């Protein structure tokens, strides 16, 4: 009997030890360094290459581009302190900022900037620039274009063109160490998840108020929500919209949101018999209850799109355009008129072709699939059969390549560079665009307009051209915005002075202080 008890006592001791271990940990949580600005977002530091992770380098203000954009959309000098264009509009001179130094203490020279830019120009995103030659003249970088290219400074905001010091590259031509010019420099990189930063005291511009910062990638949305509820970070970018009430209620962080020029859009293969007629595309567009989707799925009625882009990009938002209409009766009438009668199963058909499609969506944007299924139900009312197929994002370019794409729904930012034209060109003027039109005959008209726009330096003319482009897209619906994006940022109550950049190029951390 005594021995039986002894076993039990031993077990009880083991249990007690575990419980004590558990109870002993609380204080470790508080052991966090109070002076470190902790920033989290979903994206991992996968490599040191600017084409791959340049957006993290730019957002965390580790690396900078020649030209930068302010949150109000104004282009300002970055590594280039100023720029001019010649009378024939072909030669641009970017004067390199005097006194700017790289994180290793070496001066930023025009030669160094040119060497870095040459590498970026080889990348796909910079290939839109009709470069003739890139040379150095004194303290200036001279870029000659073959044809006038009015939005060159805006394209140079592209994160792929961040300027790195010559010592950054290894013998294999890859970036071995990120030695850049921003207000923060890297002190350590822990895997793909954590980047430790310190204030760069020789920074040329406004110096950060915090001495240390840490970037953490948290890929999973639910985990970001938990971290926000616990207040375990200072700023968390891109929180899950549906979690906002829970995060706010926990009282550690507050979610701030801002409508940004990122769009959840649907695109048609306009070459298919069921989508070739503009009336069909219009009818489908009219059958979508955007407000319902924005309220029920996105929990933000203001996200319902009325045209391609929100007012956050005033230049590309035409308030005079009639908004997308929600009119099921009108949509049905339009389809009747276009000669698509309903079949016995309720689905319309014409010349043996059913008004049906498979819409590919992106699985890692879960709301797109929910929006797609809502649209599936709504389109039934006009006799269209829609199936929704979520998949990896690469499935969309793959389907376009294979010629099997019928409809897609995706998320697209129009300010990869702060001039929307740079996104309109690849998306609306090509026969096959990945995130835009497919086999759309209207592309030639848009191309004529964008060609003129790119070469024009006349603001009034450019305004007229923008309106014309937006009108064609709104009328012919080769692509239609369903909902705009709310950029959601959870901010810890100890953070003061955060400015949210709708262009998502910089986190503006230099303005942040910790209370």
């Amino acid at each position, binding site marked *: 009997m005594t021995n039986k008890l002894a076993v*039990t006592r031993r077990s009880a001791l083991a249990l007690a030890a575990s419980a004590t271990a558990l109870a002993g940990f609380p204080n*470790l949580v508080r052991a966090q360094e109070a002076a470190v600005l902790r920033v989290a977002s979903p994206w991992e530091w*996968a490599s040191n290459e600017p084409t791959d992770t340049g957006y993290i380098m730019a957002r965390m203000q580790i690396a900078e581009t020649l030209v930068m954009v302010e949150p109000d959309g104004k282009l300002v000098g970055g590594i280039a302190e100023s720029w001019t264009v010649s009378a024939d509009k072909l030669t641009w001179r970017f004067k390199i900022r005097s006194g700017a130094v790289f994180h290793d203490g070496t001066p930023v020279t025009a030669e160094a900037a040119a060497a870095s830019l040459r590498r970026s120009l080889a990348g796909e995103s910079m290939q839109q620039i009709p470069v003739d030659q890139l040379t150095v003249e004194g303290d200036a970088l001279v870029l000659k274009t073959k044809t006038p290219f009015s939005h060159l400074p805006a394209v140079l905001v592209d994160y792929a063109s961040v300027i790195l010091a010559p010592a950054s590259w290894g013998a294999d031509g890859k970036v071995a160490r990120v030695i850049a010019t921003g207000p923060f420099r890297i002190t350590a990189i822990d895997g793909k998840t954590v980047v430790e930063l310190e204030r760069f005291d020789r920074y040329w511009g406004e110096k950060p108020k915090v001495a240390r910062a840490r970037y953490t990638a*948290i890929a999973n949305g639910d985990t970001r929500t938990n971290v926000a509820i*616990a207040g375990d970070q200072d700023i968390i970018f891109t929180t899950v919209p549906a979690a906002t009430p829970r995060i706010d209620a926990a009282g550690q962080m507050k979610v701030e949101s801002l409508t940004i020029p990122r769009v959840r859009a649907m695109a048609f293969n306009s070459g298919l018999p069921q989508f070739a007629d503009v009336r069909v595309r219009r009818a489908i567009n009219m059958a979508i209850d955007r407000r319902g989707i924005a309220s029920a799925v996105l929990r933000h009625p203001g996200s319902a799109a009325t045209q391609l882009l929100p007012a956050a990009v005033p230049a590309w938002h035409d308030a005079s355009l009639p908004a997308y209409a929600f009119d099921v009766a009108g949509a049905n009438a339009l389809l009747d008129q276009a000669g698509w009668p309903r079949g016995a199963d309720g689905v319309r058909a014409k010349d043996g072709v059913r008004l049906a499609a498979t819409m590919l969506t992106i699985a890692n944007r879960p709301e797109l699939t929910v929006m797609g299924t809502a649209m599936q139900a709504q389109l039934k009312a006009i006799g269209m059969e829609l199936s929704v197929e979520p998949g990896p994002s690469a499935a969309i370019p793959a389907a376009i390549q294979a010629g099997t794409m019928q409809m897609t729904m995706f998320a697209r930012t129009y300010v*990869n560079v702060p001039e929307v034209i740079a996104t309109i060109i690849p998306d609306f003027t090509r026969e096959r665009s990945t*995130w835009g039109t497919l086999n759309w005959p209207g592309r030639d008209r848009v191309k004529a307009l964008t060609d003129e726009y790119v070469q024009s330096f006349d603001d009034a003319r450019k305004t007229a051209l923008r309106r014309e482009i937006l009108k064609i897209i709104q009328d012919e619906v080769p692509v239609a915005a369903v909902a705009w994006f709310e950029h959601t940022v959870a901010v810890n109550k100890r953070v003061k002075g955060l400015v949210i950049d709708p262009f998502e190029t910089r986190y503006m951390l230099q303005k942040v202080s910790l209370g």
Partner: protein
Amino acid sequence: MNGVLRVIMLRIGQALATAAVLASLCFVFVHALPGDLALRVAAARVGDERVTPETAERIRREEGLDRPLIVQYGQWMGNVAQGDLGRSLLSGKPVTQELAYHASFTLQLGLIGWLLSYLIALPLGIMAGFRPGGIVDRMTNALAVTLASLPTFLVGIGLITLFALTLRWLPPAGFRTGAHMVLPAFTLALSLVAFSIPVIRNAVVEVRSAFFMTYARVKGLTPAAAFRHHGVRNAAIPVVTYAALQFAFVIDGFVVIETLFNYPGLGELLVKALIARDVPVIMGAGLVIGFAFAVVSLLADLMRLWFDPRGLEEARA
């Protein structure tokens, strides 16, 4: 003892062969998946929105993905023979470096979770086994069934909700401090405990009803002394085998726990590599995990021999 050494060498040889076959199967399966591999790699590298057919072509060219598959496979095998597992298509880092980094985290958490699980399961299992059908047995059985039926992520979310979000004792995610390890380790431990408690309990029950235990009691030992002297060693045989198997399962990562706790383990690396079709990482992981699995099971066999030396005779033979 020479016989044992021969068996060990043979088993290591078998492990290497198994690992090579596993890695080769990975190569075949990844290439059999539908879709353009270069396009997937490109999307993972430059981001969904920036991927263009031109990017995919550049990566295809740069990484030699346009070469015939047999050439790619042959070169990989040749390099592996020289100890070079290649570079990740995603990060450009050597695969060995990637695997070592993530494996260190998985081993750390895996070992803690695994030890913790036996710290919980051993006393409970032994107590239950001492009184089959008793209150402890019924309670631990209920606990094991409940834990086994709960998906791991639910256990994790439950622990996070209680200890991180409500009591605010522990951080909800991360890996930088000891505090970050507690919740994922407990989540892992609880998911392992569900299956190890019944194994331990049954082993104890079986040993206690064995003839040699009755004999030990008859010669005058108390139940506890009999169990200590004759029971533990015998009951340990199935438990050690099972524990080793559990540990082998743990070493290839625990994706759900890693994702939930933002923990950079092997499971997460593998899932991301699969999505991105990062062939060198997938094959390297197949090779290393396959080998580690075989080595752990070899160690389990050796432990069993230590507990029950009768097997040595067979090995010598």
